[in-house]
């Protein structure tokens, strides 16, 4: 049984993915059927007909109801069965589970745990994804690996130098010391890497037009378990924000990942890149989409291999951690604490203590 942290919000889909076709996704091992009612409300039902367990995601909508594609059991958005084939009596147990759903920032969040604890105010935010001052490209790649491997990957960006050389990696990334900060009350891990005089990788050279060396800031804000934000600032070398806090000479890219465990050994890797420059340049959008997708697929290939290696090892096989892992260790400890609290039946409110 996977050590899932259930009483938390997870991204199940982009808003644009949930419509009048039923979408099947598995979150924390729970198969979901997602769709949108005629009034625009996104809903999530258990993706199994109570009758013979046919996937409702392989069925059809009739108005706001799902008609099972096997024998016609029909369910409303509240999960209640409203029609069964050939008879008048609807068995009392004929209903499927529903899951709390909330949409924020173009993301569809779902709550798999105790519905009574589903507090929408606790959904972490990524406002750039739905802000007209930004242009966003996005995608989702399935990962055949446990979600913790993606957390490790994203909390330690020194791997860019080696795994993503030629796109976002330069020598300075691995060579620059990091600062790590854990906010105990809010449950956030911050990892900051500030490069003052770095080579400009193609990802930024082609999108910003900067030809020389750059000042490059990578400020990670991880809100476990699901949301990862990379606040990236790029500017010509030694060009800093102005004393008043404005930053007209900087290029800002908000890289957002939603790390959603699907099963014990698979993960949805939602990724988005929002920028505040070249807003009307479709060529830049296409370039950033293709480049970031390539980067994500490089991560996916590496982590899929790593999953196979780790799965074949005895549990507890020793690792080695060095300075670059300081942020990743903090994230691991926070996730472990949340999992322990969940296993102990602790309520998720107030915010989980987040000491690493």
């Amino acid at each position, binding site marked *: 049984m996977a050590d899932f942290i259930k009483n938390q919000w997870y991204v199940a889909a982009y808003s644009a993915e949930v419509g009048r076709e039923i979408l099947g996704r598995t979150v924390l091992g729970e198969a979901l059927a997602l769709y949108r009612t005629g009034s625009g409300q996104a809903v999530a039902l258990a993706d199994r007909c109570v009758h013979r367990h046919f996937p409702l995601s392989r069925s059809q909508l009739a108005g706001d109801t799902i008609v099972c594609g096997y024998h016609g059991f029909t369910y409303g958005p509240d999960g209640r069965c409203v029609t069964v084939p050939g008879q008048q009596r609807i068995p009392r147990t004929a209903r499927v589970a529903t899951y709390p759903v909330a949409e924020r920032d173009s993301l569809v969040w779902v709550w798999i745990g105790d519905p009574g604890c589903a507090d929408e105010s606790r959904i972490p935010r990524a*406002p750039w994804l739905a802000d007209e*001052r930004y242009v966003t490209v996005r995608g989702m790649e399935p990962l055949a690996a446990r979600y913790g491997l993606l957390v490790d990957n994203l909390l330690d960006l020194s791997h860019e130098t080696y795994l993503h050389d030629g796109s976002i990696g330069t020598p300075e990334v691995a060579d620059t*010391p990091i*600062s790590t*900060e854990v*906010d*105990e009350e809010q449950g956030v891990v911050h990892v900051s890497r500030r490069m003052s005089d770095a080579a400009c990788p193609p990802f930024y050279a082609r999108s910003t037009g900067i030809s020389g060396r750059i000042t490059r800031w990578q400020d990670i804000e991880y809100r476990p378990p699901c949301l990862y934000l990379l606040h990236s600032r790029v500017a010509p070398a030694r060009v800093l924000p102005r004393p008043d806090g404005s930053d007209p000479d900087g290029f800002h890219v908000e890289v957002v990942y939603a790390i959603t465990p699907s099963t014990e050994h698979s993960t949805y890797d939602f990724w988005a890149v929002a920028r505040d*420059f070249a807003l009307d340049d479709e060529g830049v959008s296409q370039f950033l989409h293709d480049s970031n997708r390539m980067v994500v697929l490089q991560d996916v290939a590496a982590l899929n291999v790593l999953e196979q290696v780790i799965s074949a090892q005895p549990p507890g096989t020793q690792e080695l951690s060095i*300075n670059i892992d*300081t942020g990743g260790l903090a994230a691991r400890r926070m996730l472990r604490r949340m999992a322990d609290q969940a296993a102990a039946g602790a309520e998720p409110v107030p915010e989980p203590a987040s000491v690493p």
Partner: protein
Amino acid sequence: MTGVGAARRDDLPQRARGPTLRIDWRPGTDLLRGTCHCGAVGEAEDPVLMWEWLLAHPRHTSGLAP
């Protein structure tokens, strides 16, 4: 081409920051410097030991402390 400097984290609902634990990798060295929310400061060359020292609050008693 220049960035337009759009607002960034200012867009978010402002949440009060709580007590923090901090580890800075001192530039030019392999040393990590840990700062507890109580103000205690310690140094180590191993992030696992550094976190353990911080998490020992309020008993920062290991040999890591300066």
